[in-house]
């Protein structure tokens, strides 16, 4: 797997969620991903970035453009140093929320993208990685 390019953005406020989303979109437009792919990836990015800001107290987003055996992919890794998630299985369940939301962010994001990975340790933080292959 080749990393064609990468970029790290801060994620501390609602405005920065928009910036991360726009960066994801501009990379995908550049690589001619389909409109559906763009929309799904942007939505998943938006969900995870908001989780990092609202529940994780802010963090960072790393964008990576990948290439593997001629396929182009985009990966977004969202990381925070928040309280972490004790029960991942429960957090991934639809309609479960520890806050005020609909409880569809994590599970929904997983359904939206090709690859979804999550690491979390209580007290240390959470990292979610989502990838879309063209």
């Amino acid at each position: 797997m080749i990393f064609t390019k990468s970029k790290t953005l801060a994620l501390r406020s609602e405005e920065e969620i928009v910036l991360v989303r726009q960066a994801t979109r501009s990379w995908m437009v550049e690589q001619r991903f389909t409109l559906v792919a763009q929309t799904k990836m942007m939505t998943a990015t938006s969900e995870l970035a908001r989780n990092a800001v609202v529940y994780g107290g802010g963090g960072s987003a790393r964008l990576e453009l990948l290439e593997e055996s001629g396929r182009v992919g985009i990966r977004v890794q969202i990381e925070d140093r928040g309280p972490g998630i004790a029960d991942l299985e429960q957090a991934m369940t639809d309609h479960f929320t520890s806050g005020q939301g609909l409880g569809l962010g994590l599970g929904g994001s997983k359904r939206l993208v090709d690859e979804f990975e999550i690491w979390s340790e209580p007290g240390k933080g959470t990292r979610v990685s989502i990838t879309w292959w063209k």
Partner: protein
Amino acid sequence: MSDPTSNHIADILARYEQPILEEWLREQSAALSARRDLISDADLRRQSAEFLALFTPACRSGSLTDITAPEWQQSCNFLGDVSRSRATQGFSPSETATFVFSLKQPFFFHLRQELGTDAATLAEEMWSATVLLDKLGLYTTEVHQKAREQVIKRQQAEMLELSTPVVKLWDGIIAMPLIGTLDSGRANIMMENLLQSIVDTGSGIAIVDITGVPTVDTLVAQYLLKTVSAARLMGAECIISGIRPQIAQTMVQLGVEFGTVVTKASLADALAYAFRQIGCSVARQTPRA
């Protein structure tokens, strides 16, 4: 605190007020040559003379190291006003700070002339004058930045107002086209505007069009659902239109359910539906045979 060196500075300022003012104006004109359109010579002269008139007594009466002291308040207030007006006129921070920094050269020239033979005193005076003018210069930059921030805040607030217009489509039918990102601030204003318009126009049907919303995530969906519920409580039916194919697919995979909310692909579809609801029909005029 009485600073033994302060008198030299104040004396020189008082004695050479006119030549310093003239040379200072020349310096400013040279530095701001590209900005001649923004400020007239007369204004520049008036501001400079006024500042010197406040600066000289402050130098005489007070400490030269602490511009927060009460004797500096008038000078600082005046500089603040100048900075704020320049910020709104479109001067850059460095152009604004030039107002103070360009005073150095004429001032130092006269200091050197007066104290030229006394190197130790000259160095000391130069140092305290530099520190003082740097502080005042940085103060103008700070005020300038704050003024710019206020402009941005005001524009943001204005945009919030502008970006959620409610339009009346027909008697009893209103529509709110949403454009751009929906954050919590905008979502609240959106709901407020829509509910108020339902009351004001006595409309039974409200259409929220999301064609211009690039990303509909769970938070945006939640805002929309809340708006629909609130409209229902007021006896109005709310239709969500402008659901593009890619948004529809995304919503389904996210698992967001709009339940009994009426959703339409386009605003035209929503309007057609609304006409049926209120018992109106739109007919094409048949050409006469």
